[in-house]
């Protein structure tokens, strides 16, 4: 943005007393908006609409153009046992990581918000995973889980427990991924609780304390009701994250063994860019677009309230 730029129509948008045509009056805001609108149309709106449109066509192969297939891609999706397995994984992943990380985040926020010694250390330690790339986090945890050598087995062997193979076994691999996600996300949610806790008037708690309320009663009757909007807000973000944050799968399991740790977006990526079955991947994209839009409408609603009342 150079200072020397001087576009004639920009000269006096606020000068209401000057007679000007509607065109001249409305040109400046449209000029200001044009870069955003062009970019959003190119990378958001048109791709989204085109994705829905293309989901009714087959994948073009070589010289053969794509053909209209109606709902066939969706029928394939419904008939694909892997899709259901992966969707199931994603639901389990969401309903375990979200409550667990919200509860841990709330505990963290209470600790960081209290008068305990060493608070800067706690805040640093809890929030650090948030700034680390999920790919790197995956690498670190891979070592943590390593059969025989990882810290989990090292600690287990102190108590005479047998070696584990958390990421190698179909039954446990998803829990291994859940653990990483809880570690990564809790600190992020903590900061919202921290802001909410700091917004609770001190005299409310003091009054309750004088009345002889226990710590648990203060938490249950004062803190919890006042932070409920924050819990809702975090739940929405967390649900979206459970569907789009999948990078740790790349460095830890590649969805395996046998799709037991694959999540929806990972499966979509694999169909699109490994198997090059674009038509099928596009049908899955539509599924995700619809799913995330429903969740996201809730997010906008909550975000609006947050901004207004804080």
């Amino acid at each position: 943005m150079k200072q020397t730029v001087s576009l004639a129509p920009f000269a006096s948008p606020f000068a209401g007393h000057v007679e000007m045509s509607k065109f001249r009056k409305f040109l400046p805001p449209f000029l200001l908006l044009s870069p955003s609108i062009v970019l959003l149309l190119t990378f958001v709106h048109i791709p989204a609409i085109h994705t829905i449109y293309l989901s009714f066509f087959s994948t073009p192969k070589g010289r053969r153009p794509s053909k209209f297939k109606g709902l066939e891609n969706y029928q394939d999706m419904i008939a694909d046992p892997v899709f259901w397995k992966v969707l199931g994984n994603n639901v389990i992943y969401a309903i375990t990581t979200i409550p667990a990380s919200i509860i841990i985040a709330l505990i963290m926020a209470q600790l960081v918000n209290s008068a305990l010694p060493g608070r800067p250390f706690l805040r640093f330690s809890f929030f650090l995973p948030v700034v680390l790339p999920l790919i790197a986090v995956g690498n670190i945890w891979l070592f943590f889980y390593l059969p025989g050598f990882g810290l989990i087995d090292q600690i287990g062997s102190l108590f005479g427990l047998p070696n584990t193979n958390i990421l190698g076994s179909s039954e446990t691999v998803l829990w291994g991924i859940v653990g990483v996600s809880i570690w990564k996300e809790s600190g992020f949610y903590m900061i919202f609780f921290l802001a909410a806790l700091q917004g609770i008037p001190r005299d409310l708690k003091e009054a309750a304390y004088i009345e002889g309320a226990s710590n648990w009663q203060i938490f249950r009757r004062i803190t919890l009701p006042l932070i409920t909007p924050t819990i809702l807000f975090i739940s929405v973000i967390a649900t979206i994250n459970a569907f789009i944050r999948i990078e740790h799968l790349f460095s830890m399991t590649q969805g395996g063994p046998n799709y037991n740790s694959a999540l929806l977006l990972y499966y979509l990526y694999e169909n699109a860019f490994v198997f090059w079955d674009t038509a099928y991947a596009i049908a899955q994209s539509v599924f995700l677009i619809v799913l995330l839009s429903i969740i996201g409408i809730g997010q906008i609603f909550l975000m609006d309230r947050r901004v207004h009342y804080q």
Partner: protein
Amino acid sequence: MTGNLKNVNVIGAWLLGFLWLLPLLYAIWAAIHPIEYQVRFDIFAPLTFFNFKNAWAQAPFAQYMLNTLIYVTLTTSSQFVVCALAAFAFARFEFPLKNVLFGLVLIQLLIHPEVVLIENYKTIRFLGLMDTIPAISLPYIASAFGIFVLRQTFKTVPKALDDAALIDGANTLQILRHVYIPLSLPTFVAYGLVSISYHWNNYLWPLIVTNSDESRVLNVGLAVFSMEEAGVEWATISAATLMVTAPLITAFLIFQRQFIESFSTTGIK
């Protein structure tokens, strides 16, 4: 709170803090010790730089670092310009279809880049930008979130300041540049920090649109390195992982408060 209960809390809190650092401490241990000490925790184990040198020699991390810096700088600075212009229009102008357009912008909060990546991949290929750094940036530049938070901030700027600037003969862009932006710097800093860490951590889209070392970012480079070197010592991968994350960890150590405040005020990763 009784003294005993408080002590239990302190110990519990520190344990949780330590537990949370453990994965990283373990990776640091592996990276700075010779391979035979990988799982032998001896305080007097000799220290070594070998793992870092080894990782550095096996992949062009300097190139990845440079690419990442260019990508992050390009993205965040373009977002500042594009989003500030749009936010200014929404905050201070009345024009037809204003609400419809604002709604169209907000739709981006629903359509995450991840769910349209197949179409965006085709667009980038069509534009002839495959395997370039601008290709990684482009889909993120018009950020609904940036527009939203900047609009909220711009709305709090007193209108009297506009009038004063107008009397001084300033045009629209000058008012934005000299009145609105200086008064909204904290929001720019907050949004900037969030955007930088988002893009430093971004993986899926950069993975798809880049395929050579000339344009790969750190995350993709690290993933490729770790997968190719699957048979190689953990110590080397740990060292590489630490090299990749070191700038972020350092920045976080220095700007801890700003980071946390930014994330909580803008509320998005």
